[in-house]
Protein backbone atom coordinates (compact mmCIF):
# COMPACT_ATOMS: atom_id res chain seq x y z
CA UNK A 1 0.00 0.00 0.00
CA UNK A 2 1.13 3.51 -0.76
CA UNK A 3 1.75 5.89 2.11
CA UNK A 4 0.75 9.50 2.29
CA UNK A 5 3.30 12.08 3.35
CA UNK A 6 1.69 12.64 6.71
CA UNK A 7 -0.41 10.50 8.92
CA UNK A 8 -3.39 11.75 10.74
CA UNK A 9 -4.43 10.83 14.20
CA UNK A 10 -7.81 9.23 13.74
CA UNK A 11 -10.21 6.45 14.64
CA UNK A 12 -10.91 3.63 12.26
CA UNK A 13 -14.63 3.39 11.61
CA UNK A 14 -14.60 0.58 9.11
CA UNK A 15 -12.75 -1.36 6.48
CA UNK A 16 -14.49 -2.67 3.40
CA UNK A 17 -13.74 -4.44 0.15
CA UNK A 18 -15.08 -3.39 -3.21
CA UNK A 19 -15.31 -6.58 -5.21
CA UNK A 20 -18.66 -6.30 -6.92
CA UNK A 21 -20.86 -3.47 -8.09
CA UNK A 22 -23.19 -4.24 -5.19
CA UNK A 23 -20.36 -3.33 -2.83
CA UNK A 24 -20.25 0.13 -4.45
CA UNK A 25 -23.85 0.73 -3.36
CA UNK A 26 -23.50 -0.85 0.09
CA UNK A 27 -20.31 0.96 1.08
CA UNK A 28 -21.42 4.35 -0.21
CA UNK A 29 -24.55 3.97 1.95
CA UNK A 30 -22.35 3.16 4.95
CA UNK A 31 -20.33 6.34 4.31
CA UNK A 32 -23.46 8.41 3.98
CA UNK A 33 -24.59 7.13 7.37
CA UNK A 34 -21.25 8.10 8.96
CA UNK A 35 -21.51 11.56 7.40
CA UNK A 36 -25.01 11.88 8.80
CA UNK A 37 -23.90 10.68 12.24
CA UNK A 38 -21.16 13.29 12.26
CA UNK A 39 -23.79 15.93 11.73
CA UNK A 40 -23.01 16.89 8.14
CA UNK A 41 -25.78 18.66 6.27
CA UNK A 42 -27.67 17.03 3.44
CA UNK A 43 -25.59 18.68 0.70
CA UNK A 44 -22.28 17.57 2.25
CA UNK A 45 -23.66 14.08 2.78
CA UNK A 46 -24.54 13.97 -0.90
CA UNK A 47 -21.14 15.36 -1.92
CA UNK A 48 -19.13 12.77 0.01
CA UNK A 49 -21.42 9.92 -1.06
CA UNK A 50 -21.13 10.91 -4.72
CA UNK A 51 -17.35 11.38 -4.45
CA UNK A 52 -16.80 7.91 -3.00
CA UNK A 53 -19.13 6.40 -5.55
CA UNK A 54 -16.93 7.81 -8.33
CA UNK A 55 -13.77 6.49 -6.67
CA UNK A 56 -15.28 3.04 -6.01
CA UNK A 57 -16.35 2.76 -9.61
CA UNK A 58 -12.86 3.62 -10.80
CA UNK A 59 -11.44 0.87 -8.57
CA UNK A 60 -14.04 -1.58 -9.81
CA UNK A 61 -13.67 -0.71 -13.51
CA UNK A 62 -9.93 -0.17 -13.79
CA UNK A 63 -8.44 -2.26 -10.99
CA UNK A 64 -10.99 -5.04 -10.54
CA UNK A 65 -11.78 -3.76 -7.06
CA UNK A 66 -9.96 -2.59 -4.00
CA UNK A 67 -10.12 -1.73 -0.33
CA UNK A 68 -11.74 1.14 1.52
CA UNK A 69 -10.78 2.56 4.90
CA UNK A 70 -13.19 4.86 6.66
CA UNK A 71 -11.79 7.00 9.44
CA UNK A 72 -12.79 9.92 11.53
CA UNK A 73 -10.36 12.31 13.13
CA UNK A 74 -9.15 15.81 13.64
CA UNK A 75 -7.23 17.23 10.71
CA UNK A 76 -5.93 20.79 10.90
CA UNK A 77 -8.53 21.50 13.59
CA UNK A 78 -11.33 20.21 11.42
CA UNK A 79 -13.55 17.33 12.39
CA UNK A 80 -12.96 15.17 9.34
CA UNK A 81 -14.46 12.12 7.71
CA UNK A 82 -11.62 10.41 5.88
CA UNK A 83 -12.03 7.81 3.17
CA UNK A 84 -9.04 6.03 1.67
CA UNK A 85 -9.46 3.93 -1.48
CA UNK A 86 -6.64 1.53 -2.30
CA UNK A 87 -6.31 -0.66 -5.33
CA UNK A 88 -3.64 -2.82 -6.88
CA UNK A 89 -4.59 -2.02 -10.42
CA UNK A 90 -2.54 -0.80 -13.37
CA UNK A 91 -1.98 2.66 -11.90
CA UNK A 92 -2.53 5.95 -13.68
CA UNK A 93 0.07 6.73 -16.30
CA UNK A 94 -0.23 10.47 -16.36
CA UNK A 95 -1.55 11.72 -13.05
CA UNK A 96 -1.27 15.35 -14.03
CA UNK A 97 -3.41 14.76 -17.10
CA UNK A 98 -5.90 12.67 -15.13
CA UNK A 99 -6.26 15.53 -12.65
CA UNK A 100 -6.66 18.25 -15.27
CA UNK A 101 -10.14 19.53 -15.81
CA UNK A 102 -10.54 18.71 -19.49
CA UNK A 103 -10.17 15.10 -18.52
CA UNK A 104 -13.52 14.59 -16.85
CA UNK A 105 -15.97 11.77 -16.71
CA UNK A 106 -18.38 13.90 -18.75
CA UNK A 107 -18.52 11.71 -21.80
CA UNK A 108 -17.23 8.56 -20.23
CA UNK A 109 -13.58 9.45 -20.73
CA UNK A 110 -11.09 9.56 -17.95
CA UNK A 111 -11.51 8.90 -14.26
CA UNK A 112 -13.65 11.87 -13.25
CA UNK A 113 -11.03 12.86 -10.69
CA UNK A 114 -11.23 16.67 -11.03
CA UNK A 115 -14.99 16.53 -10.42
CA UNK A 116 -14.56 14.27 -7.42
CA UNK A 117 -11.94 16.61 -6.04
CA UNK A 118 -14.36 19.52 -6.20
CA UNK A 119 -16.80 17.66 -3.96
CA UNK A 120 -14.44 17.21 -1.02
CA UNK A 121 -12.22 19.38 1.21
CA UNK A 122 -9.02 17.41 0.79
CA UNK A 123 -8.01 15.17 -2.09
CA UNK A 124 -4.74 13.26 -2.22
CA UNK A 125 -3.70 10.73 -4.81
CA UNK A 126 -0.73 8.47 -5.31
CA UNK A 127 -0.31 6.12 -8.19
CA UNK A 128 2.46 3.83 -9.29
CA UNK A 129 2.33 2.10 -12.66
CA UNK A 130 1.62 -1.62 -12.34
CA UNK A 131 1.35 -1.32 -8.57
CA UNK A 132 -1.80 0.54 -7.87
CA UNK A 133 -3.53 3.73 -6.91
CA UNK A 134 -4.47 5.14 -3.53
CA UNK A 135 -6.82 8.06 -3.16
CA UNK A 136 -7.55 9.68 0.18
CA UNK A 137 -10.35 12.18 0.49
CA UNK A 138 -11.55 14.18 3.48
CA UNK A 139 -14.70 16.07 4.21
CA UNK A 140 -14.87 18.51 7.08
CA UNK A 141 -17.86 18.60 9.35
Amino acid at each position, binding site marked *: MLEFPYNTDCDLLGKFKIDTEYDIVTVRQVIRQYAKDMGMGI*VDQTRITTAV*SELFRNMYNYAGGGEVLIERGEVESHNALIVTCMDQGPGIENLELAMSDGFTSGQGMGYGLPGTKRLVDRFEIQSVLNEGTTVRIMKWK
Partner: protein
Amino acid sequence: MNLHEKKIPIIKIHDYLIVPIQVDMHDKLAIQLQSQILEEIAKTRAKGVLIDISVLEMVDSFIGRMLSGMASMAAIMDTSVVIVGMQPAVAITLVELGLEMPGVDTALNMEKGMEMLERRLKSRKTDSF
Protein backbone atom coordinates in the same frame (compact mmCIF):
# COMPACT_ATOMS: atom_id res chain seq x y z
CA MET B 1 -32.72 -5.88 1.90
CA ASN B 2 -31.67 -7.84 -1.10
CA LEU B 3 -29.92 -5.59 -3.53
CA HIS B 4 -29.72 -8.26 -6.18
CA GLU B 5 -33.40 -8.85 -6.71
CA LYS B 6 -34.85 -5.41 -6.94
CA LYS B 7 -36.81 -4.42 -9.96
CA ILE B 8 -38.11 -0.98 -10.77
CA PRO B 9 -41.78 -0.81 -11.79
CA ILE B 10 -42.89 0.92 -14.97
CA ILE B 11 -46.45 2.20 -14.82
CA LYS B 12 -48.43 3.12 -17.92
CA ILE B 13 -51.05 5.87 -17.73
CA HIS B 14 -52.67 6.91 -21.01
CA ASP B 15 -49.83 7.96 -23.35
CA TYR B 16 -47.23 8.06 -20.63
CA LEU B 17 -44.93 5.78 -18.74
CA ILE B 18 -44.15 6.60 -15.15
CA VAL B 19 -40.98 5.23 -13.63
CA PRO B 20 -40.56 5.79 -9.90
CA ILE B 21 -36.97 5.00 -8.96
CA GLN B 22 -37.21 4.13 -5.28
CA VAL B 23 -33.90 2.40 -4.68
CA ASP B 24 -30.22 3.25 -4.71
CA MET B 25 -29.41 1.65 -8.06
CA HIS B 26 -26.35 -0.46 -8.68
CA ASP B 27 -24.93 -0.43 -12.19
CA LYS B 28 -26.64 -3.54 -13.53
CA LEU B 29 -30.01 -2.38 -12.27
CA ALA B 30 -29.50 0.99 -13.99
CA ILE B 31 -28.60 -0.65 -17.30
CA GLN B 32 -31.47 -3.10 -16.95
CA LEU B 33 -33.88 -0.24 -16.31
CA GLN B 34 -32.65 1.54 -19.43
CA SER B 35 -33.50 -1.37 -21.72
CA GLN B 36 -36.67 -2.15 -19.80
CA ILE B 37 -37.98 1.38 -20.44
CA LEU B 38 -37.08 1.28 -24.13
CA GLU B 39 -38.85 -2.08 -24.53
CA GLU B 40 -41.88 -0.69 -22.77
CA ILE B 41 -41.88 2.37 -25.08
CA ALA B 42 -41.87 0.07 -28.10
CA LYS B 43 -44.61 -2.14 -26.66
CA THR B 44 -46.99 0.57 -25.44
CA ARG B 45 -46.09 3.30 -27.95
CA ALA B 46 -45.93 5.74 -25.09
CA LYS B 47 -45.41 9.35 -26.11
CA GLY B 48 -43.64 10.40 -22.97
CA VAL B 49 -41.74 9.01 -20.01
CA LEU B 50 -41.61 10.54 -16.54
CA ILE B 51 -38.75 9.31 -14.41
CA ASP B 52 -39.26 10.20 -10.78
CA ILE B 53 -35.98 10.44 -8.89
CA SER B 54 -37.33 12.35 -5.89
CA VAL B 55 -36.19 9.72 -3.40
CA LEU B 56 -32.74 9.28 -4.95
CA GLU B 57 -30.19 10.61 -2.48
CA MET B 58 -27.40 10.73 -4.99
CA VAL B 59 -26.79 10.65 -8.73
CA ASP B 60 -23.22 9.88 -9.66
CA SER B 61 -21.70 10.13 -13.13
CA PHE B 62 -22.77 6.59 -13.98
CA ILE B 63 -26.45 7.12 -13.20
CA GLY B 64 -26.30 10.60 -14.75
CA ARG B 65 -24.96 9.17 -18.00
CA MET B 66 -27.54 6.40 -17.90
CA LEU B 67 -30.35 8.97 -17.60
CA SER B 68 -29.09 11.18 -20.41
CA GLY B 69 -28.39 8.14 -22.60
CA MET B 70 -31.93 7.01 -22.06
CA ALA B 71 -33.30 10.43 -23.03
CA SER B 72 -31.39 10.33 -26.34
CA MET B 73 -32.46 6.77 -27.11
CA ALA B 74 -36.10 7.57 -26.31
CA ALA B 75 -35.89 10.68 -28.53
CA ILE B 76 -34.88 8.46 -31.43
CA MET B 77 -37.99 6.43 -30.71
CA ASP B 78 -40.05 9.66 -30.85
CA THR B 79 -40.67 9.72 -27.12
CA SER B 80 -39.84 12.51 -24.67
CA VAL B 81 -38.25 11.84 -21.32
CA VAL B 82 -38.62 14.16 -18.35
CA ILE B 83 -36.71 13.63 -15.13
CA VAL B 84 -38.77 14.84 -12.21
CA GLY B 85 -38.14 15.65 -8.57
CA MET B 86 -34.38 15.90 -8.38
CA GLN B 87 -33.40 16.85 -4.83
CA PRO B 88 -31.57 20.19 -4.50
CA ALA B 89 -28.53 18.50 -2.92
CA VAL B 90 -28.33 16.13 -5.88
CA ALA B 91 -28.54 19.01 -8.36
CA ILE B 92 -25.80 20.94 -6.53
CA THR B 93 -23.54 17.89 -6.47
CA LEU B 94 -24.08 17.11 -10.15
CA VAL B 95 -23.07 20.64 -11.15
CA GLU B 96 -19.98 20.58 -8.91
CA LEU B 97 -19.04 17.19 -10.29
CA GLY B 98 -19.14 18.81 -13.72
CA LEU B 99 -21.53 16.31 -15.19
CA GLU B 100 -23.59 17.67 -18.02
CA MET B 101 -26.73 15.90 -19.03
CA PRO B 102 -27.36 17.08 -22.58
CA GLY B 103 -30.86 16.63 -23.91
CA VAL B 104 -32.35 15.83 -20.52
CA ASP B 105 -35.44 17.79 -19.55
CA THR B 106 -36.22 18.18 -15.91
CA ALA B 107 -39.26 19.27 -13.95
CA LEU B 108 -39.76 20.11 -10.31
CA ASN B 109 -42.38 17.44 -9.70
CA MET B 110 -44.59 14.87 -11.38
CA GLU B 111 -47.39 17.36 -12.06
CA LYS B 112 -45.08 19.87 -13.77
CA GLY B 113 -43.42 17.06 -15.69
CA MET B 114 -46.77 15.83 -16.95
CA GLU B 115 -47.71 19.36 -18.06
CA MET B 116 -44.42 19.62 -19.88
CA LEU B 117 -45.08 16.41 -21.78
CA GLU B 118 -48.64 17.42 -22.62
CA ARG B 119 -47.52 20.79 -23.97
CA ARG B 120 -44.93 19.10 -26.06
CA LEU B 121 -47.37 16.56 -27.42
CA LYS B 122 -49.85 19.31 -28.30
CA SER B 123 -47.26 21.42 -30.12
CA ARG B 124 -46.16 18.37 -32.05
CA LYS B 125 -49.74 17.70 -33.19
CA THR B 126 -50.10 21.28 -34.40
CA ASP B 127 -46.76 21.04 -36.22
CA SER B 128 -47.89 18.06 -38.23
CA PHE B 129 -50.76 19.97 -39.87
